[in-house]
């Protein structure tokens, strides 16, 4: 008990220095909580919108389809697999998509386009696309010879709602596929590439136009949480029905997204390391100064029979107390600020091309998680303990006579 009292009083013998040290810890830990929540939140948003818009968390495909999509590389019996996958733990929804490259012709112009056959009812649940219709409406179950198209694609073909569009392509069996669809809706996701090249039609139409004979190109799975992706993928791979097929996770289908996140994270980590080093130096300075100032006192204490390790313990208690006060305050402040911004969001303006590329809104919402609260403070506490240990261990080598001489 005496040592705790001594440590606590020692902190306040130079209040300004101690307060500055504590403030450095408060600032660093608070900032880390906020920044990590912000980054993790943004990454989750990025992944989520990419997953919602295009890939889903997981896909099952025929081998080789991901690298070279060709009409004949199909999943032969998608429905049996579909039912079994839907029953897996962690699976939110499953659907089937097929796609074909076709020549689309409006009244005046023609262009190549990616035609995607989808199940409108399921897409409404798992895809963000139905919500991004800017004109007209999205597909409905039972629609026949109807399509939705991206705004840039419509512009290039010079077609609008209600106009007809002729599609000519090649069926699964190599035969010529041709049909006429009426445009029911025009969507705009903000991702130019997607808005220029994508058209969706009901899967039933697609199957007959492109002679799919029951085959499908992609089984698209969304999971309840991001973290479920790998366990579900593993479970699917175990299924007998999946033999001869591949299971891909979202980051395997959009490697660019994962790289962008990693790059951004590394940039963040460099900043955090600098921040933690600054805090470490502030601690180091505080304790070297403290030891310098108290050398005679240590001499007296050792003379009357205090063992050096007891003095080291007192110094470490001092650093521990300052660190705890700083970390706790920092975590509370960081959490409060994060909560505030997770409510109001942070405007990103036009600044973030990266985010636009993955279809993210211009407001970002930091997301508080146990991980984002703990990581920063945990690192700081380890670093401050070690940096306080370095000066404190100098005491072990102190000789009482030398200390008494100051």
């Amino acid at each position, binding site marked *: 008990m005496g040592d705790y009292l001594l440590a606590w009083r020692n902190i306040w*013998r130079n209040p300004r220095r101690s307060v500055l040290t504590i403030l450095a810890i408060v600032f660093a830990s608070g900032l880390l909580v906020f920044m990590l929540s912000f980054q993790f939140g943004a990454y989750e948003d990025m992944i989520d919108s990419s997953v919602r818009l295009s890939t889903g968390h997981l896909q099952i495909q025929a081998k080789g389809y991901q690298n070279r999509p060709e009409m004949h590389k199909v999943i032969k019996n998608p429905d049996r697999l579909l039912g079994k996958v839907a029953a897996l733990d962690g699976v939110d929804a499953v659907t089937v998509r097929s796609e074909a490259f076709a020549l689309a012709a409006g009244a005046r112009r023609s262009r190549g386009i990616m035609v995607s056959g989808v199940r409108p009812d399921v897409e409404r649940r798992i895809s963000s696309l139905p919500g991004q219709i800017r004109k007209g409406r999205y597909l409905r179950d039972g629609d026949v010879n109807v399509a939705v198209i991206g705004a840039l694609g419509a512009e290039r073909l010079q077609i609008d709602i209600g106009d007809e569009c002729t599609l000519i392509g090649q069926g699964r069996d190599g035969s010529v596929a041709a049909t006429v669809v009426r445009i029911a809706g025009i969507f705009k996701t903000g991702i130019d590439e997607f808005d220029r090249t994508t058209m969706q039609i009901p899967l039933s139409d697609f199957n007959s136009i492109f002679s799919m004979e029951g085959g499908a190109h992609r089984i698209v799975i969304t999971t309840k949480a991001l973290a479920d992706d790998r366990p579900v993928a593993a479970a699917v791979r175990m299924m007998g029905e999946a033999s001869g097929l591949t299971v891909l996770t979202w980051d395997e289908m959009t490697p660019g997204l994962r790289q962008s996140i990693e790059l951004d994270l590394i940039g963040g980590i460099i900043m955090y390391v600098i921040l933690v080093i600054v805090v470490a130096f502030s601690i180091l300075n505080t304790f070297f100064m403290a030891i310098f100032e108290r050398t005679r006192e240590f001499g*007296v204490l*050792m003379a*009357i029979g205090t*063992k050096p390790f007891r003095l080291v313990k007192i110094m470490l208690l001092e650093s521990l107390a300052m660190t705890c006060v700083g970390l706790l305050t920092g975590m509370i402040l960081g959490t409060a600020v994060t909560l505030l911004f997770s409510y109001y969001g942070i405007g990103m303006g036009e600044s973030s091309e990266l985010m636009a590329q993955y279809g993210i809104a211009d407001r970002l919402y930091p997301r508080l998680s146990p991980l984002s609260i703990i990581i920063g403070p945990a690192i700081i506490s380890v670093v401050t303990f070690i940096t306080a240990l370095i000066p404190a261990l100098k005491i072990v080598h102190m000789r009482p006579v030398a200390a008494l001489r100051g």
Partner: protein
Amino acid sequence: MSIVEVEEVSKIYHQGKMTFKALDDVSLAVDKGEFIALAGPSGSGKTTLLNLVGGLDLPDSGKVVLDGNDYSKMGDGQRADLRLERLGFVFQSYNLIPVLTAAENVEYILRLQNVEKAERIERVQSILDEVGLQEKHNSRPDELSGGQQQRVAVARAIVSNPAVVLADEPTANLDSKTGEKLLEMMRVMNEKRQVTFIFATHDKMVMDFARRIVSLHDGKVAGDQKKDE
């Protein structure tokens, strides 16, 4: 049987390539209950000798024995324990821990000795009263005069029931009146408790109080004078 035995002790300091013989073949025996001053001009080796007697430093040759314990045969930790149990220290200045009150400063050594709380409080109270600091138990060192601070230091040196108290220039920073009171107080302790006091000093007044004066000169014992009562 002497409580302190110094036998043919030499101490050499090294400073870079220079060596300096601070003590040269010094022998000294101190009996229990003595009140003794080590006198001599500045640089004659008083502090050096006191540090050796206190086991704070070890001689280059010869041996120092405290109450039957030969320092040369003990480790750092054992000597620290011996100091804690058998010795009290009073220095010229910077004696007290500035963040602890007078009472806490005195109590600290009893904590080190693992004395129980009730007994600690009782012993601290009575020793502080004994050194005349009834009103000042809860004052911090910076709220005390120099003389009062030295009284706290003496209280701390005494409270642990040591065999020997070593005091290095305890009066050097005090005016003569305050110094005299401190010395009187220490002599009362000496007589009442049979605690041995060894001073290092060049204060004339300390020598007047002492009952034996050992004079050092250039690291050698130049005189050893016992006063008759």
